[in-house]
């Protein structure tokens, strides 16, 4: 199955001359277009990042409603601040920057408390004892460990493991040296292991999987 087609090929399915003429639009090119007023191009960026952005917030907060609000807030802010976008910035980094700020504001506005200081709160998708059995106990414990570890390390692991961001990009996002990011990731992994091992010796505390909730006094 030759998937590789030379330009000169007469194969009508591969419109060589067309595909040569149209270069791939990178995120950065699209964002510049949005900045220049072709806001319709936002649609493509929506398509590319809606899901991964949602997952980022969802893993971070464990809360669907908050995550959806945040995704919406990020896209509106991208439109709002489009004039400040510089093509020398990677779009993804810029987007996550906006995302982190949006979340900080969201926490303030809704008096949400980051997961690690919250009391027990369960959403439908939290891990229930019966699910633990189904899932493979270890995996459920690891999930708990992830949700119980420190906020900043959890965010870092989510960025690097699930959002698959490169160290240089995370460095730019967090405003620290790439070498720092790497050693923090190493430390975060060790913290995860520690939390996990603690949970394994005391699995009952796993029910207290935390998600961001409105604190009782609001």
């Amino acid at each position, binding site marked *: *199955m*030759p*998937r*590789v*087609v*030379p*330009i000169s090929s007469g*194969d*009508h*399915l*591969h419109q*060589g001359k*067309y*595909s*040569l*003429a*149209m270069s*791939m639009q990178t995120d950065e090119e699209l964002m510049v277009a949005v*900045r*220049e*007023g072709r*806001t*319709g191009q*936002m649609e*493509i960026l*929506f*398509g590319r990042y*809606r*899901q991964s952005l*949602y*997952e980022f917030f*969802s*893993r971070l907060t*464990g809360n*669907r409603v908050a995550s*959806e609000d945040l*995704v*919406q807030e990020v*896209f509106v802010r991208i*439109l*709002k601040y489009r004039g400040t976008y510089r093509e020398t910035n990677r779009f993804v980094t810029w987007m996550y920057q906006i995302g982190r700020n949006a979340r900080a504001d969201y926490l303030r506005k809704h008096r949400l408390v980051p997961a690690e200081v919250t009391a027990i709160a369960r*959403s*439908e*998708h939290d891990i229930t004892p019966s699910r633990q059995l189904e899932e493979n106990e*270890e*995996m459920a414990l*690891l*999930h708990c460990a*992830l949700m119980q570890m420190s906020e900043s390390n959890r965010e870092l*692991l989510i960025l*690097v*493991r699930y959002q698959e961001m*490169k*160290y240089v990009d995370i460095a730019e996002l967090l405003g620290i040296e790439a070498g720092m*990011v*790497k050693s923090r990731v*190493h430390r975060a*992994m060790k913290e*995860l*292991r520690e939390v996990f091992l603690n949970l394994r010796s005391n699995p009952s505390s796993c029910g207290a999987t935390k998600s961001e909730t409105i604190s009782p006094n609001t």
Partner: protein
Amino acid sequence: MRCNEVRNHFAEYLTEELESSSQEEFARHLKECPACRAELEELTDFWVKLGSIPPGEPASSDLEVRLRAAAEAYERGLPQTRRGRRFWKQGLALAAAAVIVLTVFLGMWWRSGAAAVLESEGSRRVGYGEAVRANTGAGSVLVLRDGSRVEMRSQAELSLERADDGVRIRLNQGGVIVNAVKQQNRHLYVQTKDVTVSVVGTVFLVNAEQEGSRVAVIEGEVRVQQPGTAEVRLLPGEQVKTNPLMEPQLVKEEISWSKNAVTHIALLEQSAAVSASRQSSTETRLAFEETSIRPAGAGTAVTGGRGAGSSAVSGCNGSYQIQIDPRRFAVFGTTLHNLVIWAYGTGPLNYQDCKNVTSQNLISGGPDWLRSDLWDVQALIPEGALNYTPEQVKKGDAPKFRMMLQALLATRFQLLIRSETKEGSAYVLTADKGAPRLTLSADLDTPQFREELVNPKQPGVVPERGAIFVKNAPIADLIPILEQDIGKPVLDQTGLKSQYSFFIEYTPLSRINGGGTLFTGPSLFKALPEQVGLRLTETKTTVTIWTIERAEKPSEN
């Protein structure tokens, strides 16, 4: 390296970002240092397990709609004060940007009842029924309430009317290029004396001339209605004339007057390249007569009656089944991703596409359900449209069939796909003289093992962890397995045409490059020449890559 330095590299090792210059020393230290090795193995184990934690509750299905609405609401609700005058002073680029920013604020005008704004004349408001004439040499741009832009050729004349479900542009004379924003429940119409065009969201051109009208599509799709005739659907590059005596014109030339001609032409070529139809408007387009698409298992999936051309295929998303009779195409339980590969790829239909690296790289983008949701697709092939044998179709040797499939994806899944040719690295597979050899290491060399390779019950290429069994099979079947391991296209230049039996033992590249276990054994690059006499050599090649820009779940049949 000391332990400290090695541990500094652990994070890079986990994300496979370890630089090749450090790899050797890193590996050497690990071999000698049980403590580092133990820690790394434990971290790797956590890392791998972490990867399989699900992302949690999926977003609600209306999130996309909500996002778009929020963005639109934002765009319309911007306070007008932000349209600072200083914008105009900062050179051409900013001036151009400001023109567009201006359109963003049009929401302010609408409340006062204007139908549109004439951008070129200092944003003069245009009411319903008012005649608008483009006098300026460069043409004028009219911006409608919904943000749709109507570029008028000089001397063009039109007026706007309210229609029951939207706005009607009555084009009295001349040419317009309409860039319509996606219409939700409303419609945009362009009407000349002898034709009506209705629009969902697209870029198209209408010319009202003395002897008749001409409609051509640049991007998207419009419906054209002439009095007393059936509605015609037009796709990019296609055009309709109301009078057969009118001179035929290339769409490209017809839009050359526009200020945005370059953009339009690029758009036209791009959409025409991906639009299902490569035919001129006079020929019938290739499309299935009737199609039915439903979520797999939801309806009356036929699993029994297999026609002459049917074959069951085990894909990576369960099993799917293809039927191709002369008049009917049906596949049960397949992903849209697979359908796209069949429609735009070049390989055979009954391939396990989702396991094939090249086809994975070939098609990217699109929503997640593209690769997970399963569909039952049934379609009627127009009588006499295809003269292929089912074998030809299954081998991928059926261009018209692919075009029908492309048309189906475009209309039913609203598929928008973009292609691009890239130079990339690939590998060429060549054979030494007398290759491929069947050589077995002493521990494997038993009569039973040889017999299983040479006279197998089931011929084929069977990959296993770190080994490939080629059992009386063609080299072509080995290629995807190689591609999967090395993650690059492999071109078969062995010239070997027959069936072969041989065996390769190797260490997967993913493991060598840091998949978790410590490095052992030769890679394919080494194992192939040493064990069977085949060679992989790096080369450059051009690859066409397809990016899915849009796909929507099909509506009711």
